[in-house]
Each structure stands twice: as C-alpha cells, then as structure tokens.
C-alpha cells in the first residue's frame, strides 16, 4: 500500500533536520580534506566523545551548568581533532591521502573502545538541548510539530556553509587554505606557514565535529556511541557527492540523503508488508553516492589521491 501524499510530506522536515546535521559534518570533512588531504573517518566518534563528556558534566557533577557542558562538547571535538592533527598530521603529511585517511579509522576504533569502556550500556543516556523543550515555539507541519532543535540544525547548516564558503573565498587564511589544497609544497615555498594553516583547519573542523555531535544527540534523544560514530557514513557520502570540493553541493546532498532516508519510512507497507521499501533506507547514502559518482564521473575523474601526490 503506497503512502498518501499527506503522510509522506510529514517526513520531509524530519529528514531535513537530520540531513542538516549530515551536512554540517560533511562541510567539516570537506574543509579538512581540502586543506590536509585527510578524510576523517573518526568524525562521528570524536563528536560522540564530546557529547558523552557533556552528559557526565550535566548529570554527574553539581557545579557544571548545562551551557558549559554544551561548550565542553564542542571544545572536546576541537581539542581532540587538533591533538590528532598536531601529532599525526606531520607524520603522515607526505603520505598518500588513502594512508592518511586509513589512520583515522584507527582513531575511530580507539575512541569507540574508550566509549564502550567508560560509558557501558548500563545507563540510559541522553543530552537534551534547551531547544528540545521549546514545544510551544515549534512549528506545526501537518500533524507533526517541528522542534526548535530541528530548525536550529537547518539554520546552522546553511549559516556554517555560507560562512565557510565566504571565508575560503574572501579571507587571507581562506586563500591559504585553498593554496595548500592545490599544492602543499609550492605553497610552502611561497612562504605560507603551511603547518599553521593545517593546524587551524584541524581545529575548525574539530569544533564543527563537536557541534554536529551535540546537535545529532539532541535530534535522536539518545546517546549511543555506535549510532553517533556511524553518522560519518551519511556525511562522507554527501562529501563524496560534493566531490570533496564543493561545500554547497555537500550540504544539499546531505539534505537529500536525510530527506530520502526519512521519506522511505512512509513506505512501510509497500510493495509488501513483509518486504517493505523502508527496510532499505540505510542504503540511501550509498545508493545516492554511487549514482552521483557515476553521473559526475562521466565529466570529471574523481580520485582520493590529489594531483602531485
């Protein structure tokens, strides 16, 4: 049984909100990749760790106000990413981007293990954002009320993408980012402090990572290490559709992934109750990424290895 249009439409805003978080992460991933050549698979895990620490600050201490815990989540994301960049960035600087990216998988596994050990599943955890409870100030679309957290997620995604695009285009540091992305060695010979530029990229990307972890945990009302860690899959798919270059394409691809994933929920009885289309919603990022790469690949070759490496 096909869903009615009325039922289908109600899934769109929910998908846009989740897609916005994918987009925020995707933008952070693209900025880091463009500057350092590292595709950070640990993005979700780093964000998750920040939120777990925020949870402990809110629930296990008496001195920490909630706003400070939220800030801590973002700072942990920035700090941890920066630390990784400072320690391993120079070590892997001359290596192929595939090697650089694979190294972040190691970080992912380490962080997952730490979270499983420190925060075992013997407790129900969630970090509520203040905007979750602004019920009366949410918007009603059809039968569904859209909370301010979802609206903020969407606004944040567009704001972040616009600011980052403007920063890369109009500021000196942004120009340096683009120069490093084009050719690290030549940029260094021109006197650009490449190491400092890369360090700032790690830091900014980490802050974005912390913020997206916090937003996602608010959206899903749950704090679960595996779910948050694998957020990176949808974000990576969006970044790939953006060819690891375009911030705006990445954002819109992420929104599309979120909306398609969400709308597929409406197909829970079609084509059959035992094998509904909704069962395959997890495939959305892969399918969209493959389709996009096939279409785009006809025009331009995309490879993880950048020119000159």
């Amino acid at each position, binding site marked *: 049984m096909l*869903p009615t249009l009325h*039922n289908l439409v*109600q*899934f769109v805003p*929910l*998908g846009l*909100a*989740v897609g916005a978080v994918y987009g925020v992460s995707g933008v952070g991933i693209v900025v880091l990749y463009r500057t350092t050549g590292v595709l950070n698979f640990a993005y979700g895990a780093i964000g998750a760790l920040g939120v777990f620490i925020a949870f402990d600050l809110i629930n296990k201490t008496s001195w920490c106000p909630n706003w400070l815990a939220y800030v801590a989540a973002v700072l942990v994301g920035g700090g941890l990413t920066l630390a990784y960049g400072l320690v391993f960035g120079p070590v892997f600087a001359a290596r192929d981007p595939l090697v650089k990216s694979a190294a972040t998988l190691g970080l992912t596994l380490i962080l997952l293990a730490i979270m499983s050990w420190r925060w*075992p*599943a*013997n*407790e*129900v*955890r*969630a970090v509520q954002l203040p905007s*979750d409870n602004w*019920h009366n100030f*949410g918007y*009603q679309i059809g*039968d*569904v*009320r*859209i*909370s301010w957290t*979802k609206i903020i997620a969407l606004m944040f995604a567009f704001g972040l993408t616009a600011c980052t695009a403007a920063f890369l285009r109009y500021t000196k540091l942004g120009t340096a980012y683009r120069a490093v992305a084009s050719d690290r060695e030549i940029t260094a010979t021109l006197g650009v402090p490449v190491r400092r530029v890369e360090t700032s990229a790690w830091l900014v990307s980490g802050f974005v990572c912390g913020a997206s972890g916090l937003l996602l945990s608010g*959206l*899903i*009302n*749950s704090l*679960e290490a*595996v*779910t948050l860690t694998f957020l990176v899959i949808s974000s990576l798919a969006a970044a790939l559709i953006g060819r690891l270059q375009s911030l705006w394409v990445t954002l819109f691809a992420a929104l599309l992934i979120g909306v398609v*994933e*969400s709308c597929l*929920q*409406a197909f*829970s*009885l079609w084509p059959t*109750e*035992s094998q509904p289309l*909704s*069962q395959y919603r*997890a495939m959305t990022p892969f399918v969209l990424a493959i389709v996009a790469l096939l279409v785009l690949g006809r025009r331009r070759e995309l490879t993880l290895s950048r020119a000159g490496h």
Partner: protein
Amino acid sequence: MRSKKLTAGVALAASGVLALALTAWATGAVQSSAAAPVGSGKASPKKSVCGLGTGKKAKGKPIKIGAIVTVAPGVNWDEITDNVRGYFNCVNDNGGINGRPIQYIVHVDPINPELVAAFAKKLIEEEKVVAIVGTIDVMDCAVNAAYYAQKKFYVIGDGVHDLCYGGTPYHIPINMGPAYSTLGAAQYLVRKGAKSIVAVSPTGVDAAGTWNKPAVEFAKSKGLKGIDVHDPYPAQASYALKYVQLAGEGGGVILDFTTDQVLTVLKAAEQQGIADKVLWAGSTPAYDTRFAARAGSFWDGKFGINTELTPFTGKGPDAALYRAVGKKYVKKWGLSSFGQFGFLDARVATEVLLTLKPSQLTAKGVNTAFTKIKNWKSDLLCKPFYSGNLPGHVPNNWDLTTTGKNGKMVVLENCFAIAPVTPEIKAARAAEKKFKLTSGTSYPRPAWQR
C-alpha cells in the same frame, strides 16, 4: 609528673570508649555496624536467604556452572548473567552448596552462531560444567538444542528465540520471552480500546522474525488491523512518526526494544506532538528503574509495559532478597525485569542443587534434577515455575502490566493469563493440568522445609 598525667588521661579515655562500646552493645546500637551478611539467616515464608544462609564463605571444591550471553551493539543482556553471578556470589558467601562454592563461567556471544555452538561445547566438554544456568542468547535454542539433547543438558535460563518456548525440551526458560510479552502488551492495548496493533521488533535480534506474530494474530482475532514491523535501532525521529502513521488515530503501538531505544521513540513522539494520537505499550525490557527516571512526567501512566515477573518493589521475601543482592553484588545495573530473570535463574538452580547429595553433583545428577522441578513458588512469579520433563516449556505464561509514574514503576494491571493463541501455550496449559505441575508437592521444597 607529665608522663603520669598522660597515662592517666589515656586510661580515662580508654575506659570511656570501653564503657560507651559496652553500652552500645548492650542496647543493640551496634547492630547496624555488625549487620548480618546479605542473604544470611534462617529462611522462613517471610524471609528468603541465599542458599544455606549461614553467613560463612564456602571453601570447598568449586561446582562449575556456565552460561552463554549475547552482548552486541544495542543488546546488553549481560545484565542477566551479572545478576546470576551476583546471586551465586551471595550463595558462596552463605555456605555455598553444602560448603562448595559455585564457579560461574560466562561466554559472551556477539551474535555469531559458530561461536554459540563452540561455547556450548567448551562449557560442557572442556570446562566440565555440571549445569547451564542464566543463558540468554539470540540463537542458543536454535543452534545448540541438538547438542544439549545429545549431552542431556537442560538449560535453566531465559529464552529469546521462538524455539526456546516449546520447541525443545532442553531449554526451560524462567521468562516468557519477547513473543509472548509482546502478545501480553497487545492484550493490554486491546483492553484499553486500541483500534489497531502495530508490533515493532528489533531486526538482528529477532533472528527468525517471529516475535510479533502472536500479537498480530491476536489483533486479527479481535477484528483489528495487525501490522508486523521489524526495524533496527530506532535512532531517528522519523521512526516515531512511522509507527503513529501505521497505527492510525486511536491505534496501538508496541515497542519491543530495550529501555534506551524505547525512550528514543517515545521522546521523539512527544516532541513531534504525535504521542497522544495512539496508545503505547512495550514488552518486558522497559520494566526498569531507568525508564521511570528518564521518561518524564508526560509519559506518566501512558506507556504500558508487559512485565513478565511481579514488581521488584514488592514486599515479598524474594523481591526483598533481589534488591539486597543487587545492592551488594550487582552494583553495575539498576533494578529491572532482566535483573530479576537472572536472580530467579540462579535461585531456582541453587535450591535444586541444595537438594542433591554430594555424589549427585555431577552433570547427570544436576540435569536429571532440573527436569523434576514442579510447583516451585516465588513472590516474583505470577504462577509457580516448573519443568516437568515436557517436550517443550512455557512455564511462565501469566504476567502483568506496569508503567512509569512520578519517577517510579507502578502496576497498571495485576497478573493475567497470556492469550492461548499458539499451540505451545495451549500445550503448556494442558500439561499443567494433566501433570499437576503448579499444584501439590513442590520440588525443590521451600527452603524452610529443606
């Protein structure tokens, strides 16, 4: 001179302390600091103890008992085996099995059938356990039933797979399992006037995809729409909307997930303003202090939880002992149905072991004794527990409905019979009558008659 004064002062202070100590002892004021060990004392109809209740550590040759438990992302059933271990530790601190401590060996299955088969062999052939108690595994009943038949091992544990409930004589579950608990939740929703039943079970864990079938059949037998849904961890807000749309206005949604996953859906429904469009219920896993603590006042009385054992807040002796053992020996977990399962698995097994002579504490002796369990009572059970040497077992087929209210778990409906919609439940009820399994002389006898 100074030294004499000092000596006199010390003597005076010592006398004072001694006098105070004697007074405290005489008035019983020191009782709290020298409180009796947990689970110790003389068993009576009003007091349950751990094993012999001697308060003395068992020091003999260990008796090995094993278990297999599923622990995977989103599936943390070690809460059950941790509670089994906690009770056995309490027994060991109270004289053990006539002086012999229990050594509990648990193997963790990350949902891998090959490992499950290997663990059963390892427990029985290498580690030489005399019994398997507290197993809770996604696939154990399906994978190991033939092996247990060959080795004549009767597992007292907790079922998950449909085969655990009537499909094999070698699993004697103390719980009712997800399928019947979901059915109980459907019965509650129908009584509340639900216009449809949407039963949601977790893919991956519901390995055979059959957990929702009795609930859906029950709904259809009442002339209602019944929908069988299988979903992974419902980590996004869209799941709540999907369930509400499927159920329709006034319909009923049953969530067969663990507490944190249930709360993810409920909170999403609350935030979207769609929670009151349908009636909500869940299976046993959400009967948990963590649910009441986290659900919030919006959900007070709105989420009916089918609860396979009677409340852990009860005044009965076993409920009191469960809380005491949990507090001392199982600090990692809160109070929950899962904890109660582990406690009862270990308790009934211990009571059986205590009836055996030292020469019978072998795999053959213990497993033969397990088949004789009959009319065994606990205030945590709606009806007596039994094994009865039957071709299949569903001894727990009555339960109740609870809910969270004001931060606490409270009873919504007292014990009721699970609807006999499956041949296995019908067979269990017939066997109870025919062999008088829930009446007459108990085996094992109550501890105070031991």
